[in-house]
């Protein structure tokens, strides 16, 4: 995918998707002139297959599948260094947020990346327990990703040091947390929230 030839035409350039990103992020994509300062300062750039400037470049060409297929948007730590330093007022951190949101809604196509899965399980965990129950998160992730033995040997160590709790402790105000989730869901239905 990464090096595949681009065929550019009105059909292959998904300008509708780019407009969505622009309206969600409140930042222009076209304004970027590819100086690369965002990628130069990004702490996660080295781990991304598309550094931040190339994400914007792909958006300029309406290449939404290439953007969403990779891990880059999930590796973004939202540190906002890019936004702070951009000479052209491109709010890259917000664009990354918008992309993650759109990827979530589109349910992929970031299948090759487990980052999205981890994020989804993390949020579900919060909704169920009102706080993080790491043991379950780890177990669920390993099951769903099919990597049953991933990081298994770390378990006893973490347990013995008290970093991992064997049993969960539910938040007392779990009903209120459920209320927050419900409210956001409703706002999203009405289009008032991301």
């Amino acid at each position, binding site marked *: 995918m*990464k*090096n*595949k*030839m*681009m*065929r*550019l*035409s*009105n059909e292959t*350039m998904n300008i509708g998707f780019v407009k969505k990103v622009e309206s969600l992020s409140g930042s*222009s994509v*076209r*304004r970027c*002139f*590819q100086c690369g300062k965002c990628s130069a300062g990004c702490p996660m750039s080295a781990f991304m297959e598309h550094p931040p*400037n*190339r994400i914007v*470049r*792909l958006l*300029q*060409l309406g*290449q939404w599948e290439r953007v969403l297929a990779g891990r880059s948007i999930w590796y973004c730590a939202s540190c906002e260094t890019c936004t702070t330093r951009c000479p052209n007022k491109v709010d890259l951190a917000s664009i990354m947020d918008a992309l993650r949101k759109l990827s979530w809604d589109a349910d992929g196509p970031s299948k090759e990346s487990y980052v999205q899965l981890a994020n989804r399980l993390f949020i579900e965990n919060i909704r169920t327990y009102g706080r993080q129950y790491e043991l379950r998160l780890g177990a669920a992730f390993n099951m769903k990703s099919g990597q049953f033995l991933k990081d298994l040997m770390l378990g006893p160590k973490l347990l013995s040091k008290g970093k991992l709790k064997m049993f969960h402790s539910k938040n007392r105000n779990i009903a209120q947390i459920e209320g927050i989730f419900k409210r956001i869901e409703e706002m999203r239905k009405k289009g008032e929230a991301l």
Partner: protein
Amino acid sequence: MSRIGVFVCHCGENISRTVDVEQVAAAAGNIPGVAFSCDYKYMCSDPGQNLLKKAIAEHNLTGVVVAACSPRMHEKTFRKAAGAAGLNPYVCEMANIREHCSWVHENREMATAKASDIVHLMVERVKKGKSLAPITVPVTKKALVIGGGIAGIQAALDIADAGHQVLVVEREPSIGGHMAQLSETFPTLDCSQCIMTPKMVDVANHPNITLYSYSEIEKVEGYIGNFQVTVRKKARSVDESKCTGCGVCIAKCPKKKIPNEFDQGHGMRSAIYVPFPQAVPNTPVIDRENCTMFQSGKCGVCAKVCGPGAVDYQQEDTLTVESIGAIVVATGFKLYSIDRKPEGSMIQGYGEFGYGTIPDIVDGMTFERLASASGPTGGKILRPSDGKEPKQIVFIQCVGSRAREKGISYCSKICCMYTAKHTMLYHHKVHDGQAYVFFMDARTPGKGYDEFWRRAVEEEEAVYIRGMVSRMYQKGDKIIVMGSDTLVGVQVEIEADMVVLATAVQPQEGADLLAQKLGISYDKYNFYSEAHAKLKPVECATAGIYLAGACQGPKDIPDTVSQASAAAAKVMTLFAKDQLERDPVVAKVNEKYCVGCFACKKVCPYGAIEEKEIKDRQGNVVKVIAYVNPGVCGGCGTCQATCPSKTVELDGYTDEQIMAMIETL
């Protein structure tokens, strides 16, 4: 006995760092004929010059040597100071101990010795030097402007408004040049013809301007202030004095299917035609190669329908000789063609773009005509092959430019901006279309320029792709454009309906031949060379000839107009004086000994050597000898070195002086 003064400059530390200036001054004092020597921190400063003036008066000096920087830097300064102190300025010489010594050496001892030697040389030269007087030449206050594009028009109007006579010579039937062809102009998108045609009319109506359209320069003789220019007025076959410009002849001409050059060959014109409706002068011209009357002798419709009887098939080229004081060259540019070029040509064609065989691959100027309201499509953007509106249009920058392998290594400067403009014009006219631009760099240094191309990208939805196109080919009615996006790092393929190439700017056809007639220098691309890249950007090395516009290098309209006005100002400066003063460093012939072999004439790069007849009292020619025209002589000394009988000598550099210098070593 000479009484020479030697003044050694420290130039701050520039000289004194490597040269022991005190020692140089002391050594100079011991040279026979030197009456005074000293050193000073800054000789060129006011106190330094006063020191020189005072010494001339006190020591009654007969000559001065200033050991300092290059004469190019301060010779004028010190000669003026010497002149102010009552000395002939031409017995004041500079010994260059900075550029020729302190700056290029490290060993102090040896540098000091060399500096002393240089000073000694100059002292000997000044000893044998003569007092000289500046040469004066009269100035004919009439300017010639070659080329009637925006550069020529601007220069002509400026000079004419200053009250001087101007002759404008234009090769084409109408003035206006390339600017008249443009649709809109960057960065304001105002209509080119709307701002151009009033100026064209001004030229035609100005009482001080004489317009020679459809004419070429035949011969140029003479020198600054006194050129003799022969203009060939090509046969128009229409009498300008009779023609009223009614246009009946054009309407009635039976031969109407001739590609119109003004529309880059995309519109049609008749055999008798004006290039475009706003042409100045509005007098038709007969294209003899395509006219039935001239080819077969049968037709003559235009002559029959012409009321005033202006059509004249018998008209011939006429030659006019004009006396001219200054020349502004404003011959402009042409666009590079991607066609296959003849073997041996420096400029190569583009095989990967089909050598110009794909009809819907056009150049920028053609796109201008397609977008222009007065163009062949009435301002609709339609592709040449089938007249369809292109929905996917690709623009490619740097075609020919910055491509050393294709023969051109320079940047054409205007293409980034006009391509941005093209994408906007396209977007304004084809709302559902998409414009793509392949570019290597966006170079937009100008007032409001970067904002302009950013507007094309951000607001006018042009997709800019940083990378070049490697190949294009026709597939059905599409053109497959294969390029790359170097920012993403992938190949890009676009099925385009039309492709516009921003081809390189080249000097006008025949620029080299005109330069040879004028005696001005040009570079390997045939762009005319300015006298100094920074400090004399509008002057030629040949005095009295000035440059304006794209004939000197690629330029946009604002730059061209600025340079044209600058050239006009230089002409006005020249015309402000009745007599021209110049350095008397010119060659002179000793008439007694010259045998008239004219070896000097063959080598003179300025054409300054003339033949002079020596007559006896009865008026019989005794001998023909060489004569150096002091107005033309550039003082290079080539004749002096060539002369077998040693009769030509350059003032200030006579054999006697040079020998005396050599003997000190």
